[in-house]
């Protein structure tokens, strides 16, 4: 018995989100929350001499773009509870303060497996982050796990 879902869902792009501006303060708070001390993310003067010519966000900042209800309204739900099961992120270009980031996403894959907590349906959503120059910043495969 396989998972029941509408095959038309696969590879269909959701509505592309409105741009979200990356605030310098948000990067600063993100760094603080992770205990980040690398000067290329935290120190404007030092970062100017670094490989990116100014402060950039730590690469993992790319996964923090939630863009409101973008996902939750579009991801098929197969159980009562949804959990974040993991992410596969390709970091293409650094995210800088002032970037206007848009997110476009589609369902990449739906499959079923069993684990310690029971039978789970995995929904893989692929999101592409772009900046105001249409430059790709990152591709993210979000693996959402649904279980009763």
């Amino acid at each position, binding site marked *: *018995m*396989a998972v029941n879902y509408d095959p038309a869902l696969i590879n269909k792009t959701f509505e592309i989100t409105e741009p979200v501006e990356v605030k310098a303060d948000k990067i600063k708070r993100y760094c*603080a929350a*992770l*205990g*980040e*001390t690398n000067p290329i993310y935290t120190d404007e003067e030092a970062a100017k001499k670094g490989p990116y010519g100014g402060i950039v966000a730590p690469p993992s900042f790319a996964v923090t773009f939630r863009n409101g209800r973008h996902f939750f309204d579009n991801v098929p739900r197969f159980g009562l509870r949804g959990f974040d099961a993991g992410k596969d992120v390709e970091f293409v270009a650094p995210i800088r303060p002032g970037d206007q980031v848009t997110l476009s996403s589609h369902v990449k894959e739906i*499959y*079923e*497996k*069993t*684990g*310690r*907590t*029971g*039978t789970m349906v995995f929904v893989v959503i692929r999101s592409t982050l772009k900046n105001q120059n249409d430059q790709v910043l990152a591709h993210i495969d979000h693996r959402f796990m649904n279980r009763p």
Partner: protein
Amino acid sequence: MSTILDLHTHSEASEDSRAPVEAYLNWIKLRQAERPVDGIVLTEHRQFNRDADYRHLEDKFGTLVLRASEVETNYGHMLVFGVNDDMVARFDFADVRLDAQTLIDEVARMGGIVVPCHPGRPNIGLYEHYQSRPPLENVVAVEALNGGSRKGEDERSAELIAKYGFAATGGSDSHLVSLIGLCATKFSAYIKTIDDLVRELKTGNYEPVDFRPRRKTVPHAVAMESR
């Protein structure tokens, strides 16, 4: 002459691993002193890759690479050794609700053997199912040591093995290159092919071996830098 094989491994062919087979073999070579395994058995999730050919890597590293499968049943996850065309035609390996007893009996009839893995693990191991349902028949061996076990899981497996008198295997269940060979199975026979392995698994003449490092004591933890 004995043979030590890691009977439970996942490579990049499994959806939840990125480990290339070549990197596994290279890591075994690098860590031969601590993890002296002679070969690995690829047990990709819910599939059997019939046409995969690792002979060039076996030659390059002098390490045996055999292929099996890890499937999902109503009694938990099970390793299927000696997969052939008849089995692939008979069972949908992607089905996560295979009937365990049918699988065990049919695979045996078709010349292979089924070994329930991580029996002490909640929901996907034999132990929990045996608390509420009749035991399966014709189980020869189960996996006693699993490199991915959480605390207490291998202990529950040991309890089950003692109670039912199963033969016991070991496997790393590695999904990462650096975790290959942490648990394995030592056979008293020389094993060179999948037919040798199936034959030996049926005899019960082997034992699990544990190459996991002992936990070092943590001196003190550094508090996360905060604002």
